[in-house]
């Protein structure tokens, strides 16, 4: 039985993973320039400030690009039984970009421009990752 791959929890990314386990999205925001930062960093990639705080962003966004994943390459074979599935680049309403699976729609019917909302999927005991579901 292969398992889905687990992240490496570090002092930097622990707040994100702790919140995700509770099915809450936490991302960093720069206290100097106000921009949201995803993925977790040691400093703001827009202004260089180290003064980042963890905040709950708006959970809605728009699909920018989508692909249907059909083969396992460089990842766990555990994904095979769920294929095919859609993976999208999602541009969130608070101005950050994130990758994730799109569930709740046929993979071939997911389109750029589609509005989505964050949900969470448990990939192991106590470990959850964001996924996206189309808004009605």
């Amino acid at each position: 039985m292969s398992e889905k791959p687990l992240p490496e929890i570090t002092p930097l990314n622990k707040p994100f993973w702790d919140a995700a386990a509770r099915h809450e999205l936490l991302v960093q925001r720069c206290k100097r320039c106000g921009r949201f930062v995803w993925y977790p960093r040691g400093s703001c990639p827009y202004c260089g400030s180290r003064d980042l705080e963890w905040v709950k962003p708006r959970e809605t966004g728009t699909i920018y690009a989508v692909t249907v994943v059909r083969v396992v390459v460089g990842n766990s074979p555990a994904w095979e039984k769920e294929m095919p599935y859609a993976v999208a680049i999602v541009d969130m309403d608070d101005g950050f970009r994130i990758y994730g699976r799109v569930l709740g729609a046929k993979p071939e019917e997911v389109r750029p421009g589609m509005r989505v909302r964050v949900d969470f999927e448990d990939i192991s005991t106590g470990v959850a990752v964001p996924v996206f579901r189309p808004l009605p």
Partner: protein
Amino acid sequence: MSLDVAIVGLGETPYSRARADKGEIVMSAEQYAAWATSLALEEAGLSLRDMDGQGLAVAGTEWPHSEIWSAEVVQNLGFRPKLLLRGDFGGNNAVELAVQAAAAIRSGLVDYVLVLGADSPMTPFGTQTARSWRYDIDYMRPFGLMGFVTLAGLMMNRHMSAYGTKVEHFGKIAVTQREHARLNPGAYVKAPLTMEDYLKSRVLSDPLRLLDSVMFVNGGIAFLMTGREKASRASKQPVYLRGYGLAHNYVEGDPAMPDVTTTGVKAAARDALQMAGATPADLDFLQLYDDFTGAVLMQIEDIGFCAKGDGGKFLDRTDISYKGELPVNTGGGLLSNGQPGMAAGLVHVAEAVRQLRGEASGRQVSGAKLGLVSGLGGLAYGNNLANSGALVLGVM
């Protein structure tokens, strides 16, 4: 200024998938490094000891060696260099190391730099491939992404949805490059390829097909660079570095949500052409880094042959074969040559050198005097590739 560094020696080994059952060569990266190095030095008429106190620039490998690896390479080869450079730029290794080599030669630090890429991804050793990026380990693999394959699919999907590009446009690149490979004695993949074959090939991550993607081969390439004075006395016709450009973490548009269909080659090629005092129309050929077909189409736009998004229409009206208006990847590119791991970018330099020397028999671009080589490497998060570069190479 831009004519003072040249390539004066080239070594390229045969490529192999290490299929012993098919009688193919099975060798390690160390053996390919030795082979490519001796071929390049021999062609330049230099001995190993002529390289004492000179420079060696070595690309990394797909299967991990020691962190302090270049020290092992020089001992393996018996080099005693003054300057030692190591590339961790993926598909931009060749361009990046060539630029670093040129800077070192111009500064007077050394007279020669051997740029070396040798890799054996089909002959793995140890139990693990190199460690990936943290954002891949933490925020891509657990999120269901398949690395390069997924990101290439996403970039091509964006190009199609934003600009109406069709899969046949990507197919034309795969088919034309295969025609070139069939004319190149050194290319690994020789089977004929039609558009029908392309369209029937397995979809890995929509719209990316198997035939949009590279496959690994083992092999080694080395090229020797030197200054103008020594180049003028070289045994082979020198191929001059006329211009270069590099760009890392290039962003087109909003830095938080950049255009994934634009490569950093846009900035790198602009700088390289400006240094060369040339325009895209002056280029006799392009050797574009082609880890997937979509990257070729995007770079044709980014270098300025058409507007962003018009790449598909440009391909409809343009012959990109070696006989055409804009010859692209005239040796078959990585798509049909095969990708020798982290040495891949050197394949494009080798083909450019052969074209400019007039040695590309069977696929020679008529009267080739000036060409562009690009590099693209490193998966980025939420963007096109992370490392990019361009060389403009020419002969008098």
